[in-house]
């Protein structure tokens, strides 16, 4: 069945079964490989994209549920000023290790900072705890979010 969706500002039409998850439409129909498959059940967050700016697990989102929602993936995150700041902080602090979860992390962080420009540690915990990093780069993810927000990056949580 044909679906027309809006991805990173462009209208794209795909012909797939109704239950096909958005993740596989992005990756294998549209060739946008930046969104990753981790668990297939929304446990890990590697497949995070924005639907109308809201972090969404594309691995459990059927294409038939997407409708008119505006989809943003890592390939299109530069379109937002916050997204550009987040990416710049990520690269300056060399956050990633293997990098596989990082597109999901950047999407989650961009949504956080768009909503909460000066997040507390507790805001960060809440917004980011659904995105697993198997390399456990959490120390630098936290610092990069603060840097992108223009906050001091030193970890001042209780010692």
């Amino acid at each position, binding site marked *: 069945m044909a679906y027309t969706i809006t991805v990173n500002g462009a209208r794209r039409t795909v012909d797939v079964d109704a239950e096909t998850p958005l993740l596989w439409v992005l990756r294998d129909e549209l060739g946008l490989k930046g969104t990753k498959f981790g668990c297939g059940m929304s446990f890990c967050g590697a497949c995070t994209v924005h639907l109308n700016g809201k972090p969404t697990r594309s691995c459990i989102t059927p294409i038939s549920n997407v409708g008119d929602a505006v989809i943003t993936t890592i390939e299109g995150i530069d379109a937002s000023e916050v997204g550009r700041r987040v990416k710049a902080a990520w690269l300056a602090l060399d956050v990633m290790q293997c*990098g596989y979860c990082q597109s999901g992390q950047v999407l989650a962080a961009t949504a956080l900072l768009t909503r909460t420009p000066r997040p507390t540690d507790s805001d960060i915990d809440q917004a980011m705890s659904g995105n697993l990093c198997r390399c456990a780069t959490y120390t630098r993810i936290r610092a990069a979010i603060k840097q992108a927000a223009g906050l001091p990056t030193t970890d001042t949580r209780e010692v």
Partner: protein
Amino acid sequence: MARTSRVLPGSEPGTPLDSSRRAFLSASLAAGGGLLLTVGVPAIAQASLESSHALEPPMRLGAYILIARDGLVTIMARSPDMGQGMKTTLPMIIADELDVPWTSVHVETAPVNPALYGMQFSYGSLNTPLQYDPMRRAGAAGRQMMLTAATRLWHVPASECETDQGVVHHRASRRRAGYGELAGRAARLPAPDLLTVPLKDPKDYKIIGHFTPQVDGPRVLAGEPLFGIDQSVPGMLYAVYEKAPVFGSRALSANLDVIKAQPGVRDAFIIHGNAAETMSAGLVDGVAIVAERWYQANRALELLQVRWEQREVSQQATTVFDRQAASLADKAPREILRHDGEVDQAFDSAAKIVEASYAYPFLAHATLEPMNCTAWAKPDGSVEIWAPSQAPTAALMLVARTLKLDPAKVTVHMTRVGGGFGRRGDNDYVVEAAAISQRIGKPVKLLWNRRQDIQHDFYRPAGYNHFRGALDAKGTLVGFTDHFVTFRHGAEVARCAELPLDMFPAGFVPHLQFGQTMIELGAPTGHWRDPNYNGLAFAFESFIDEIAHAGGRDPLALRLELYGSPRVIPASPSHRPGLHIPPFDTGRARGVLQLVAEKAGWGKRQLPPRTGMGLAFCYSHFGYVAEVIKASVNERGLPHIHKVWAAVDVGRQIINPAGAYNQAQGAILDGLGSALHQGLTIKDGAVVDTNFDTFGLLRMREAPPVEVHFRITDNPPTGLGEPTLAPAMPALINALFAATGKRIRRLPIDPELLRS
């Protein structure tokens, strides 16, 4: 071994190869599985390269360096990068000795080519110790060729020329030539002798030792298709491969006609492999489903019904292993691995005996990128492979052997690797993809789903330690025994289920015995980050803490007392054939213990109720690491980790601080996540867990601040992928004891045991 000594000299110029260095190198050699450490610099390129200079090919200086006319330097990254940073770190070393600015360097992934690069792999924290010196010499040889080319051009003595950031200068005549201008001449010169090529004084390093972000960072965040799972080949189909829940069972039949009728499915078939390779990561029986899209193959999999052969191991279960181990604990071990002094007398005359049993579980690797591989068996009999493997040369050989091909017919491309942790040192998924492609005659991408990834791993083996410690009237540890209940495959101890004979306190207690009894295991085991210490350090370092408290000692003071004065203790022969452990330097152990104590304020803090600090040390993968954790426990028993301090000695040079701190912090958090959340259940012969709901990873809200301090000592640089992991678990357990007076002796931590 003689060859190794010849081609890999001591790591500083003019330093004769001392015996410890030689032992160290040959140790690494054996652990790496028979490496061919060719660091030669062939004058003419043999490999075909994915070069970015199509119009005017750059000049090649040896296996690692290409220089274009415009001065752009391309450096080949020889080892897989799964986040430990080798695509950046190793080229940094070359670039520094070559004396070019890092901004002029472009890094490319090297082809998998045993003739040019020997064995290519990333595991065992071995790239730094094995490659630091060869990479320096490869870069220095390139620099030497530039100097020679310039002196011949200008007819001046080499002693009057120098290099500076990609330019050769003859100061006397104010002549200068960029490397790009000289590259054509340099490439025709014979390679200099790598043994004698002059190396930089490390104080002159301009790249090594400086924070250098990963070269792939911008591309990863642009969503470029770098990982194995991202590879595409025209006409490619997608596959899943279902293996028996009970490891190694043969596939007898399957409802293939039903599967073939599912949407998008192009083919479904049984592959018969070699059950004897179940434990060694070869091709074993399974059912392949090939479809136009992976999602379709994975959907059809839900309908698959397979009749598997019944096997004896279908009775195995983790609960049964626990019962067996408990009944064996206080019986005599089947074999004695090490016996020092008069153990029975020491216990007979002890003032106090401490006794405890520890258990740690099976673990999956759960790399976030599931196992996958793209393979294309072509009509001419050749096979091309794109693999996110930690051991691509081994993958090439496995495919050639299994499919009965000339290795020259197999090409393997290294992709970026979405997490390794040792899992991808095994190449079962690679040979599966190749076999499926060969069967269908088309390119195929095999991708495992998360259930398959967790249920067909090479697991960190569980293990059980029953300890006894004998204290004299002054509280000094005089006797120590361990009955280690571990696992075997047939007659042999399972992979990574061995007890290293130098495990502390061995060598530092006069009367000591390590005994072992093995239980038959029907599940594959393998290298999980920081083997074998990732489980053993939890048990040993927690029990050392118990001994300290029983003897009225501070845990730091007890360790310093046992290690004694700074000295080098020769390693005892290991029962793992070919594995030589370098001598243990008590001074380095003391150094990191004292440093971490100082940084953490050990023994000097006033702590609130139900809050405590724990200390642990481990020497593994050539690294000396001590860690302190501060943690508290609430009334419901839930631990909260406030902070981790680590002191780390990996020698005289931190090559890339960007990667070094990230690795050290990540491995510590990895250890903590494991201690808090991870333990696989095996039942009816199969792994029960299927996803991150029961096999948990650490989350952001649980990740404490981690403060890492490197203690620089004049020793060969060694790796950081692993050694900070193991001490994190016992440091946490010891902190929880300090906070609550309750001792956790089984992982993962059960908060019920910590309730107030």
